[in-house]
């Protein structure tokens, strides 16, 4: 039987899976939205509508969606500069996110943050531009859950490059010693900007590091939404039960490139490597699953056009949002200031 298209087309924090399982259509929908969004945002950057650097998430959608589907609204999230995917999978408001990327008044952060967004509505704490720096912040959110005994967990996304940064290792030590309900999600895409990971690490997998810290590790195919979700759901269950942190290493790949400013990126990956990964596109993989399970192709195609429509509407919203009043640059230095 084909799964029904959810009535509400808004992306929202997914309901906790009833049976530990994943709503595959909802997941596909979210991934399609992210893909459409990223493509559009790159274009908008080239058109100089989006401000600042754009780090596209294209190719890694299964990780954000697989993980966020295992979360509840009360959980906390930390992202980084490559964060649109995480934000959308978490249900951050599409219009406000887009207006933020456009530097407008209706932006999620009033135009102050651009891509480095925070969103209390979805418990998205921050998206740091500094590699690894958000990881201890997520640990702090996990401390709060522990003190409050509220059963929430904290999840942090990062690239494998973050394992270069000392503060990440510090957090691993802290999280294990204090049994924090913290789930570390490493999106290992084999690159750290222009540097290939094997140039700077003895082995490209970083699971060995988490193991050294005696933290439970799940190594998964990061392009397999179900595998990611299963690892996340298992980790979340353990963490909620007060049994401490977990580390998920999801192998994946950026099929576009690391970064672009106002011109399309000139970055080129080895053709064979790229082709291999394109053949394993996470959207295609999940689509295959769905079709095999009997989902009607039309339904899935409709999700694509729906996503494009929604993205276009968000762009339109951002375009018509006013620029922030200049004097707002001086506000909110700390709470209680104007």
């Amino acid at each position, binding site marked *: 039987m084909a799964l029904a298209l959810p009535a509400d087309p808004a992306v929202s924090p997914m309901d906790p899976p009833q049976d530990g399982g994943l709503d595959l259509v909802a997941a596909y929908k979210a991934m399609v939205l992210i893909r459409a969004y990223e493509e559009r945002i790159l274009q908008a950057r080239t058109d100089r509508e989006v401000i600042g650097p754009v780090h596209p998430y294209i190719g890694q959608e299964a990780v954000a969606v697989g993980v966020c589907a295992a979360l509840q609204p009360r959980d906390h999230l930390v992202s980084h500069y490559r964060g649109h995917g995480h934000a959308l999978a978490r249900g951050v408001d599409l219009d406000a996110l887009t207006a933020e990327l456009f530097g407008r008044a209706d932006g999620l952060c009033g135009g*102050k*943050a651009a891509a480095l967004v925070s969103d209390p509505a979805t418990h998205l704490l*921050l998206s740091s531009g500094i590699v690894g720096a958000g990881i*201890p912040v997520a640990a702090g*959110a996990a*401390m*709060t859950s*522990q003190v409050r005994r509220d059963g929430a967990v904290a999840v942090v996304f990062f690239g494998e490059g973050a394992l270069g940064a000392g503060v990440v290792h510090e*957090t691993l030590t802290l999280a294990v010693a204090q049994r924090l309900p913290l789930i570390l999600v490493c999106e290992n895409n084999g690159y750290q900007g222009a540097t290939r990971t094997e140039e700077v690490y003895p082995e490209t997998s970083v699971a060995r590091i988490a193991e050294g810290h005696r933290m439970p590790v799940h190594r998964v195919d990061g392009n397999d939404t179900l595998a990611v979700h299963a690892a996340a759901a298992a980790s979340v269950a353990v963490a909620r039960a007060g049994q401490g942190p977990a580390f998920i290493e999801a192998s994946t790949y950026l099929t576009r490139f690391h970064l672009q400013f106002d011109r399309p990126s000139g970055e080129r990956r080895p053709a064979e490597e790229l082709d291999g990964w394109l053949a394993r596109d996470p959207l295609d993989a999940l689509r295959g699953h769905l079709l095999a399970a009997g989902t009607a192709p039309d339904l899935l195609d409709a999700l694509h056009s729906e996503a494009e429509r929604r993205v276009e509407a968000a762009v339109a919203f951002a375009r018509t949002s006013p620029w922030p009043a200049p004097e707002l640059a001086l506000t909110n*230095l700390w709470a209680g200031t104007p």
Partner: protein
Amino acid sequence: MNELAVLDLVLEQELDRNPDLVFLATSTPPSWRTRFGAERVRTCPISEPAMVGAALGAAMTGLRPVVDLNRASFAFLVMDQLVNHAARIHYLSDGSYRAPMVLTSATRGPQQLGPQNEQCPYGVFMQTPGVRVAVPGSATDACALLRTAVRDEQGPVLLFIAPGLADHCDLRAALAAEPQPFGVAHRVREGDAATVVAIGSAVHAATRAGDELAAEGVHVELLDPRTLVPLDLPALAASVLRTGRLVLVDDGPRSGAPAQILAALLDVPGVALALGGRIAHVSAPEVPVPSSPVLEAQYWATPERVTAAVRRLTAAA
């Protein structure tokens, strides 16, 4: 655990008062762990950057973390978490998140800890927007400002404690001190001869200098800003406009807090003219703090240096 022991008593009371208060340090009092539990009193690995990052995350989600950084020199270990993250999150999120957290550390005492661990780096935080900076000049003010800091909702606070405050500590008064608003200078003594602005451990020396000068009939106005961010610029400027003379006294280098205060004051209309160059500094040299007490001697703002500076200024005009 603090160099100024009474602060631990205050913190214990505050832990008792507010169940959201948590304490992070590489060394914690066992009695606190028993009393408040390991979830609120966290003994941490030697990982100050992660501790401050975690404090930020805890603060953003509703706790009130206090991190004992131990030495002020360790502030340089946590600058990314503190300056790029904790101090920016309220601004970056356009006011959505707040990060009420407190970092305590010890500056300098005559402990011969050497170039690394004897430092007064508070001036650095006067040019990194988003943190507030308290540098109390007495144990009583230290207690009062700590209470304010841990009860405050506004954002990160750095509390820099001079170990020497313990020498002149009235324990009972210190413990009884009510929370004190930030940004209000303490007028230690009134006078017209000159304005002396002294910070932290230098307040005591400046007080003695003030007494000595008063005995000679020279009455200086002695102000202890107590917090450097926010700075009680109105009180400082009013005094300077009245006395026309300024002596800045600190046990740190003059490029630190004194330069910041001076530049801020000169921005107030009339101050530059009122001063007409009658500005003196009593501060540490612009080099690290050496270990040998003989070398370190010249790094202290002594009453003699303060009186000499005042005399120079009052003689000049």
